[in-house]
């Protein structure tokens, strides 16, 4: 598997393409949390910066950041919010959700947080592999999500180690999709 392009092809077929259109908010889903030194994990940092980039491109007036605390570390959403403010996003444009621990809970709580503001259409910042499941969950929660994958590595990573990592990410997402379907969440 590591020496063939099979993981890249499967990933390309499985991932949703980006649909970058004006929306009411940019929702950045949690990813990897906060490291022991209080900084964001690599995946979380990448997603946060991409969400900030979309905000600065004027695609939405609100940046909604998600991420619960883990152990003694501060909440991922709070660390993301501090980073966004440091980079220049106005505090009034940032909403933070720090209680959701799963993608399903994120969809429910983001919907509860955004709909009173009259926001339904959201740009959903998530990994390419997770976009399919997250989009369905947000649709079920009453929002209108537009996938905005923070990274699409299907065509970039052709090293054997990268392909193994890609295969692992796909396996995790396929497992999660099967579990969510079996549990009736999708």
């Amino acid at each position, binding site marked *: 598997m*590591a*020496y*063939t392009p099979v993981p890249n092809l499967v990933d390309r077929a499985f991932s949703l393409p980006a649909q970058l259109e004006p929306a009411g908010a940019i929702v950045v889903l949690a990813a990897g949390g906060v490291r022991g030194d209080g900084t964001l994990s690599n995946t979380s940092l990448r997603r946060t910066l991409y969400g900030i980039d979309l905000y600065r491109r004027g695609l939405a007036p609100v940046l909604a950041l998600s991420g619960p605390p883990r152990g003694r570390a501060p909440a991922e959403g709070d660390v993301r919010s501090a980073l966004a403010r440091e980079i220049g996003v106005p505090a009034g444009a940032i909403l933070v959700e720090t209680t959701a*621990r799963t993608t399903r809970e994120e969809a429910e709580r983001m919907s509860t947080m955004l709909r009173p503001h009259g926001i339904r259409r959201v740009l959903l910042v998530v990994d390419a592999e997770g976009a399919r499941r997250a989009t369905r969950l947000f649709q079920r929660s009453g929002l209108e999500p537009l996938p905005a994958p923070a990274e699409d590595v299907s065509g970039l990573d*052709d*090293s*054997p180690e990268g*392909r193994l990592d890609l295969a*692992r990410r796909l396996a*995790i997402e396929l*497992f*999660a999709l099967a*579990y969510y379907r079996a549990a009736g969440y999708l």
Partner: protein
Amino acid sequence: MYAGFIVAVLAVSSVLVWAFTARRRGDEARWRATGLALCEFAGLWALALIVDVVVGVAVILSVRAATSFFISVYVLNDVSLAIASALQAFVLYWRRHSALTPAA
């Protein structure tokens, strides 16, 4: 590109090992048996990894259902689990074959 280079390195080192160890004619049967053993070990490794993941998910979901304690399923997304599964597969393989081999 990278993949091709690594496959070439593995091919060359395998041929070198074969050249140094295949000292007499009639070794083909042993090489066949070695290939089968490799396949058997790989299968056991995959099986051990699947069992580990299934047990891990079952425990996590049970803890979530029975208590207010939350454990993320992503804790299983750790490369050490794959390495430990390989060690489990080795133990299974060794036990299976030592049971089949008559004691001296």
